[in-house]
């Protein structure tokens, strides 16, 4: 299976940063939520995904050789 990288959620990927416990946990989760909201406003120019070594796709099977110089 081709390795998929970029803004694509992988199976088993954690949803949040692990936090500490008790009041520290509450404070950290508040900070994490604050930072998550900030980061949501910072999207880049265009989405990025790359499947395996393929940098081109034309509607058929992945073009396995196109990445070679």
């Amino acid at each position: 299976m081709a390795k998929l990288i970029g803004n694509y959620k992988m199976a088993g990927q954690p949803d949040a940063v692990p936090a500490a416990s008790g009041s520290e946990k509450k404070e950290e989760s508040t900070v994490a939520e604050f930072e998550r909201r900030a980061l949501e406003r910072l999207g880049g120019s265009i989405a990025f995904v790359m499947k395996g070594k393929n940098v081109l796709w034309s509607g058929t099977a992945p073009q396995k050789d196109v990445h070679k110089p």
Partner: protein
Amino acid sequence: MKTGLNETELEVIGQATYKKTADIGFRHAQENLPYIKQSILDVPRPMPAKGASAIAMSAGPSLHRQFTIQRMIAHRYPGTVVVADGALGYCLRNGLVPDYVVTVDPHPSWIIRWFGDPDLAGRPDDDYFRRQDLDPAWNTHERERNEELINLVNEHGPRIKVIIATCVSPNVTRRCLQAKMPLYWWNPICDDYEEPGSHTRRLFELTDMPCMVTGGNCGASAWIFAKAILHRDPVGMVGMDLGYAPGTPLKKTQYYHELIKFYPEERLQEAYIEMPNPHLGETWYTDPTYYWYRRCFLQMVQQSGWTAYNCTEGGTLYGDGIEWIALDEFIQSCSTKSLGNDINQIRNPLHCS
């Protein structure tokens, strides 16, 4: 400042980018349909006299800090020049006419300014360009500079091939056609095209254009285009800072207006990331979005197996798969490669401080 972002934070930026660009990009592709004719697979390849190398140019501050274009001209760089749209104006103002210009960001009103915006006076006023360190010409006399750029693009446009993503605003399309620039279309790969309901697949089915990995920003797309479509090797990168030089005021950073909504002024620096560049011996800094771009590029280099030659002489893009080379050495190696030299023999670390 922080020292990095974790995987979850990077994922948030990636997903935010998708949300910000997917729907508007699809609407733009629908509006661009009447103009979509030739694809990037039809684009004329560089003349053999240009040799095998290329320079992919982004619009980072090192372009003017390192006099990159002036040195390319002084050294008579013989190879192909592919530029991100943001670098086009700086090239033309300094006497360099690129072979190709890449455009991919679907923003509805900002991107046309890189080509000279005939309707600038009617756009909502903002300081997006004035506050940036990307091209100092935009910092003052914005409207005069825009008029100058309109004329330069009109004059040189027919010689510059536009590598245009289907998702760009139709006002960019019309501006390029107005300047008689030849257009070659592509779809950005935005998700897994083998998944049901894939956005990328919808774009492909709508436009019948080939799809290409983006790298997350226009400069990265320019590098990929030079490698994957033009089959250039080596491809050097310039202006690919993905960050800010030491001492750059936070107000001059690209995402300042977004970050200041979340951080009080006195704590704003906590949003940024310090990047000690081992090749320069300097600590640059970056913002979360540029840090995501950097991560995308490093992942892409590792996964493709390609080598990226970074001739920026500044910035934060270093790491596995990135060869850090002075621009003069890159040009020299490309100029002599036909005589039997190989760039792999010239890998001296850069010390330009």
